[in-house]
């Protein structure tokens, strides 16, 4: 296969970037998208040029590192597939492929196609946990959880923190991600004691990071490689409004 790649190159966070065009031939349809970029990079290094930087690691679709905007779609054209699991057979010879980094004020570019997604970590620092220390916990089977709740919580927990939802959203909103985290704990009995404070703290941090607001376009759901549902966002809204309007946070004295 022959391809023309238009790749965003940007030296660092502060530098201004631009598209650079690369021609590549000898692409096998069995290659993954990242392996195709590996080949391009190897060619660049041979010419003593700097390779294209992109985040990747497990290449099994689970670590959430890879994050490329391919022809205007996060992770490319294939549904429920991360960039690393996208194969070149999804393209045709002669295609021009535009590759951009995730774009959001909360995801500053590190270099070329790699962005800094630590904002997603900070949202979880704010409350994405159950406050339980090591040791002294009850036996695992002391808490029975209805299967439907366990399954629903699991569906939320499958989020890989890749940020495709932010990339896909026209408002660069992180609500699908945050709501998946809020939902997992809101559903499970283990998460109940800090349920409302958690929703408030995580939403507050999300806003501080500069993410946009949700306008319910649902592009996040369509582009999520793990098919996280927007019902999580509805749940987060419930949790948050419940916390803000209905919960009394002070003991009566």
């Amino acid at each position: 296969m022959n391809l023309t790649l238009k790749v965003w190159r940007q030296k660092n966070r502060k530098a201004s970037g631009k598209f650079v065009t690369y021609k590549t031939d000898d692409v096998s349809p069995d290659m993954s998208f990242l392996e195709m970029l590996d080949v391009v990079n190897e060619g660049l290094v041979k010419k003593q040029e700097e390779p294209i930087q992109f985040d990747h690691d497990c290449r099994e679709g689970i670590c959430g590192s890879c994050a490329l905007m391919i022809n205007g779609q996060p992770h490319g054209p294939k549904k429920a597939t991360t960039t690393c699991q996208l194969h070149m057979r999804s393209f045709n010879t002669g295609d021009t492929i535009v590759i951009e980094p995730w774009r959001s004020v909360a995801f500053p570019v590190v270099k070329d196609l790699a962005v800094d997604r630590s904002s997603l970590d900070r949202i979880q620092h704010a409350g994405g946990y159950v406050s339980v220390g090591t040791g002294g916990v009850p036996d695992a089977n002391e808490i029975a959880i209805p299967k439907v709740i366990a399954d629903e919580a699991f569906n939320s927990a499958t989020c890989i923190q890749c940020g495709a939802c932010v990339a896909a959203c026209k408002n660069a909103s992180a609500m699908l991600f945050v709501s998946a985290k809020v939902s997992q704990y809101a559903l499970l009995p283990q998460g109940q004691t800090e349920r409302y404070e958690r929703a408030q703290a995580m939403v507050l941090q999300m806003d501080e990071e500069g993410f946009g607001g949700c306008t319910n376009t649902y592009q996040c759901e369509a582009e999520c490689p793990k098919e996280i549902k927007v019902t999580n966002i509805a749940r987060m809204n419930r949790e948050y409004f419940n916390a803000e309007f209905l919960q009394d946070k002070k003991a009566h004295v």
Partner: protein
Amino acid sequence: MSNFSNTFSSTLGKKLIMCLTGLFLCSFLIVHLTGNLSLFKNDEGLAFNQYAHFMTNFTPIKVVSYLLYSSIIIHSVFALFITIQNKKARPVAYAQKSGNGSIWSSRNMGVLGTILLLFIVSHMSSFWYEYHWGETPYVKYETDLNTGKTITTEISASDYIEYVSYVNNGIEITKSKNLYKEVATEFKEWYLVAFYVLAMLAMSFHLVHGFQSAFQTLGWDHSKYKPLINFIGVWVFSILIPIGFAAMPLYFFFK
């Protein structure tokens, strides 16, 4: 924990405001359309003018109308805030961006909303402002309660002191501002009719997203009721109601 202003300055709080004002405006549409259906009554505007008087003078309705005006303003102002914030969240735009998975109207609520706002301003200045403070003509209806026949007479400002409706010798006499005539006249202008129809199209698209979206914002996504909400959103708010409203200018234009 936090006070109300904090709540409503969060992204979720702003969303809630859009949702609540939006739903309130939706409920108004039902009332407005139902009342305005009297335009189609072949009574030279008697029912419509009675309805117009009732709507502008009945105190509880007046209170609600102020809520309505403020809803329109708040809905627009917050839409502006939200749009600015959302634009700031992505300072560098994509060279290429697909809309995969979303409907067109959900991505263009701002444009649709702006059309609607322009429409509301123009609509209110033609009718609401004229009715209250402009030079609306006057009319007198004399209905024979035995035969049901009505005689309509246009009257001059000097013959009109205030709205009256009483029965005298089996004849019901109503004197009122003639908003009906105002409507009938306006809708003879093709450009106005076109503008109204276009605005109703915009409303249809605005509500096909807006109505169900409001329930998503409220977190009301129970799998049992969600289909009902979607059904109402599509069939009532983005088809029936816009058609109903669009039919009015068309009716008068072709009458």
